[in-house]
């Protein structure tokens, strides 16, 4: 389990509000039993339509690890295929005005931080990245800021999720399973387990 305190790298701005998970990974690519091939299919329809002009296709952004987006990114379907596709393309962290809740939770479980910033600050960062695609930016979860060039913007993240990244406990599975005894106790006090049968 690895701690995530900073993500340092080049960034890719993706401007637009309400970019949903159907656009991130169209449903036809969910016909799979592993996440392996998704990196090539991320934003497939948008990229086809933009004929090479989509930021994920533009040469200056290849190799970027920070994705900077706007409002309500990742809304819609719960498909983890969406953040998996973004991560397999190479993204390690996202900065945005706001994220849809299930998308955010999926990213936490994958170890990919999604931090929010004020709309004006996001715009400044997006413009800086467009002007300086070869320069690196630093997302600092401890200091709660993104540094780029001579500037920085404040960022925020819910404390529970932030603690999971800083302490390296974002993969909750092991911790959850370790509480087997308490889980059985909780199950024991639920009145309905005796009268509802799931199978």
């Amino acid at each position, binding site marked *: 389990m690895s701690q995530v305190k900073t993500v340092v790298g080049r960034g890719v701005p993706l401007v637009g509000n309400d970019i949903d998970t159907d656009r991130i990974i169209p449903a036809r690519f969910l016909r799979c039993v592993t996440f392996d091939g998704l990196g090539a299919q991320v934003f497939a329809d948008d990229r086809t339509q933009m004929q090479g002009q989509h930021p994920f296709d533009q040469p200056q952004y290849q190799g970027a690890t920070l994705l900077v987006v706007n409002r309500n990114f990742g809304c819609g379907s719960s498909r983890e295929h969406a953040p998996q596709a973004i991560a397999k393309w190479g993204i390690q962290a996202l900065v945005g005005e706001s994220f849809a809740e299930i998308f955010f939770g999926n990213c936490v479980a994958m170890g990919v931080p999604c931090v929010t910033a004020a709309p004006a600050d996001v715009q400044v960062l997006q413009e800086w990245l467009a002007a300086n695609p070869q320069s690196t930016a630093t997302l600092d979860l401890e200091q709660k800021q993104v540094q780029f060039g001579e500037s920085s913007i404040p960022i925020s993240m819910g404390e529970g999720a932030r*603690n999971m990244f800083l302490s390296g406990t974002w993969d*909750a599975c092991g*911790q959850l399973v370790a509480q087997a005894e308490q889980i059985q106790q909780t199950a024991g006090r639920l009145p309905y387990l005796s009268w*509802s049968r799931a199978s």
Partner: protein
Amino acid sequence: MSKGTLFDKVWDLHTVGTLPSGQTQLFIGLHLIHEVTSPQAFAMLRDRGLKVMFPERTVATVDHIIPTENQARPFVDDLAEEMMQALEQNTQTNGITFYNIGSGNQGIVHVIAPEQGLTQPGMTIACGDSHTSTHGAFGAIAFGIGTSQVRDVLASQTLALSKLKVRKVEVNGKLVPGVYAKDVILHIIRKLGVTGGVGYAYEFAGTTFEQMSMEERMTVCNMAIEGGARCGYVNPDQVTFDYLKGRDAAPKGAEWDKAVTWWQSIRSNADAEYDDVVIFDAAEIAPTITWGITPGQGIAVNESIPTPEALSENDRELAAEAYQYMDLAPGTPIQGTKIDVCFIGSCTNGRMSDLREAAKVAKGRHVAEGIKAFVVPGSERVKQEAEAEGLDKIFEAAGFEWREAGCSMCLAMNPDKLQGRQISASSSNRNFKGRQGSASGRTLLMSPAMVAAAAITGTVTDVRTLL
């Protein structure tokens, strides 16, 4: 912070403990899985050498990839067949009940769990599907999760979560004929926006919801997520209990009385405290339809597509994108918009009452020339019941196709897809770009009765003129 609401009571009861991060470890009373979001979760379990902790608390079905015409195995689509086999294998290996095609119990996961009585008040319910909010209609705390979280539930029957705030969304009064549950939720999303519910659970309260059937309440809760709220719920009442009584998985005999007493105790207290309250008047709600590319871009059927000036500055950029994508001009009436395809079905509107309302409109009329119209029942049981009532015959006589149960063209993972720039009148839940299987396809969301009306006239039509 909310206090004394159903959400608070159910959350507290299911809390296993507090994790070092400060998040809650929450027990999940019912876990539903399907073929799309579970295979990778089972693979993760295998990688870690973990077992399913409570196999009897998970139920599986297959819905997203199901062909609604030729269901012969192996499926024509190799990838769909591979997913099907993975689910069959994973459920068998782990001792999980699987409602397969032809079992009589297969269908959209959010249709079959309620109809079998698996969904009950006071439960926590999770599923790797955002429309899990549907089950909140019973007074359950139900929400969608991703695949890593499906893994967590399989391995521990718990999730690491932060508690949501609670907003009471109150609607009072009687809906006029031709206005349905779908219109109520489209209206709420239009008013509160697609991000309005982020961080909240929505408690749907007030006389309008009290008067609704369980199926109508499911339609409303289903789309809570489209308003940004991960879960939505209605307090359980006599309508809930009457629906549940006698269903396969519902309590029987002495346990029934015990259950009802407990279900009543978990209702939100009269003096419950909410983080926010909003109030709507049912009389103001008209048949509502989306014109754009998010479920929040809705208008009453007798309105015109909003001009940029009529919108808040925040909404103009997205509206500009929508005018272009939809090829609809601001200021023009939505009524009369030419339709190509009509789809009745989905976890939002694929239940008996939905099909009955659509059939009322279709009866004795015929689908307009050049329109492809099809009806996809939400489950094998819905299909069987509809056929017993003769709804299939009404639809077929009117020129609709009558299909097998599944998610179908709501998300178009199966062979049912829009072609090119086609525009659909759809009873489903999402009008995102490319949602219905064509990268340039267009979707207008509306009630099933409104879809039937569009099929008959070939254009967007106020269903009230056909009732």
